[in-house]
C-alpha cells in the first residue's frame, strides 16, 4: 500500500476541519477541545493536534489529509506534519481580514519547511462579508503566479476543485522538471 499526504493549514477558524470532513471517506479523526481563550471564542472547539482524513484511491494507494491546529501555540506540530507532504493547502477565512497576516506567516513558514507545491484558498466565499478574491490576493501579498482558489469548505465540489488545482500544479511542476 502506498500513502501520500496533503496538509491543510491556515489560521484559527479558517475552516480546515470542515474542509477535510467534506471530502474524507472516513469520519474525520480530530482532536478538538473546548476553547479556553476568550479572544479565540468565535467557535466552541478547536483542533489541538491534527485532523486526519482519508481518500482511498484504489487498493494500492491512499491519500491522507492532515489538518494542522490553527492556534499559534500549537505551531510545533506544523513541521512534524509537513514532513514528506505532497503539497499543502492554506485556508484563509475570507470574512476575517484580521487573520490575513497570520495566514501569510503560516504560508511562509510552511514554504520554509518544504518548498512543495501549494494553493491558497479563499474560504467562506458564500458569506456576504467575504472579501473579493483579488482584494485578498493584494492583502495577502500573493504573487500573481500563486493559485488563489475560491472555496466553501462545507461544499464537497468546491473542496474537490481545490485539491484538483493542487494536483494539477504538481503535474505542471513534473512537466517543468522534465523539460
Amino acid at each position, binding site marked *: 500500500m502506498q500513502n501520500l499526504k496533503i496538509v491543510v493549514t491556515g489560521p484559527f477558524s479558517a475552516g480546515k476541519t470542515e474542509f477535510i470532513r467534506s471530502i474524507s471517506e472516513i469520519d474525520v479523526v480530530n482532536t478538538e477541545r473546548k476553547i479556553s481563550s476568550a479572544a479565540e471564542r468565535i467557535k466552541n472547539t478547536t483542533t489541538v493536534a491534527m485532523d486526519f482524513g482519508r481518500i482511498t*484511491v484504489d487498493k494500492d494507494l491512499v491519500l491522507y489529509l492532515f489538518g494542522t491546529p490553527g492556534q499559534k501555540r500549537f505551531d510545533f506540530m506544523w513541521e512534524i506534519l509537513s514532513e514528506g507532504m505532497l503539497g499543502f493547502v492554506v485556508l484563509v477565512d475570507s470574512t476575517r481580514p484580521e487573520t490575513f497576516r497570520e495566514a501569510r506567516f503560516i504560508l511562509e513558514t510552511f514554504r520554509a519547511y518544504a518548498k512543495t507545491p501549494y494553493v491558497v484558498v479563499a474560504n467562506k466565499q458564500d458569506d456576504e462579508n467575504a472579501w473579493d478574491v483579488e482584494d485578498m490576493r493584494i492583502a495577502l501579498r500573493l504573487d500573481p503566479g500563486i493559485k488563489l482558489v475560491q472555496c466553501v469548505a462545507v461544499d464537497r465540489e468546491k473542496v474537490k476543485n481545490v*485539491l484538483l488545482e493542487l494536483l494539477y500544479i504538481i503535474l505542471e511542476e513534473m512537466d517543468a522538471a522534465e523539460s
Partner: protein
Amino acid sequence: MALKGNLRDFSLSQLLNLINLSKKTGSLFIESSQGLAQLAFRNGKLVYAGIGSDENNLSSILYHSNRINQSQYRVLQERITQMTDKETGLLLINAGYSTYEEILSCIQNYYIEVVRKMFTWLEGEFHFENDGLSFEEKITINLDLENLIVEGSRQIKEWEHLQEEIPSLDLAMQFSEHPDKNISNMNLNVEEWRVVSFINPKNTIRQIARATHLNDMEIRRVIYGLMQAGMIEYVHAEASPILHDRMFPTKDRQQQRSLINRIIDKIRSI
C-alpha cells in the same frame, strides 16, 4: 541562585524589571554577537551602561553628542590616555568647555542609547554579578528603570509585529516594478541607503544584514519600511515550488506521475 541565562528566554526588559523590583546592586553582563555589554545598577537604578570598550570614554561621548568639536576631541584623546573620565570631566569644566549639567546630560543620554540598542538584542548569554560595581574612573548616573522598561516592552511588541510581517530572513528582495517610483527622490537615511545598495534577487535579507552590520530587528525594520513605501518586494521566483522524492513513496518519475493521475481520477469521481 545565579541570575544567568539567555536573552532568547528572558528578555532585557524582563531583566530590567526584575532588577528594578528587587532593587539590585551589581552588574549585568551580556555577551551577544553584537558585543559584550555591561549595565551597572545601584539599588535598582541604572548607573552605567557600555558596549565593548571603544568609544565609551567621556571625550568620545561628548564628541558624538556635538558638545566638543573635532579638534577639541583630538586634543583630548591625546591628553587623556592616563586620565579617568572624572578627571577629564573636571578638566573640561575648569577649562570652560562644558558644564557639570551638560556632561551629566550627555552621559545619561548615551547610557539610554546603549540600553535602547541592547533592546534589539534577541540572543545573548547574560549573568548578573552582585556588588560587581567598580566605577571609580567612570561618571555614573542614577536613572530610574521604569521608562526604559516601558520602552523595551514597546520594542518587543514592534519586534513581534516585524516578525509577523517578515517571518524569514532567508527571502530575497527586489525593487518593485513601479515606473512612477524614483528612489533618488525618496528621503532615505544612511542605513536605508546602505540596505538599498544590496537589494538584489541574489541577496537574502540575512546576507544584507550581515553586509550592513544590522541585527535581526534593525534589518527587519528597514526592510519593512522600504516594503511599506512600495520600493521593494519579495522576489517572485521564490514562489516556485520544488518537487523532491520525499513527497512520493517511489523515486521513479513515471510512477510518481501515475500516482498523481490516479488521485486526480479518484477525486473527480467522488
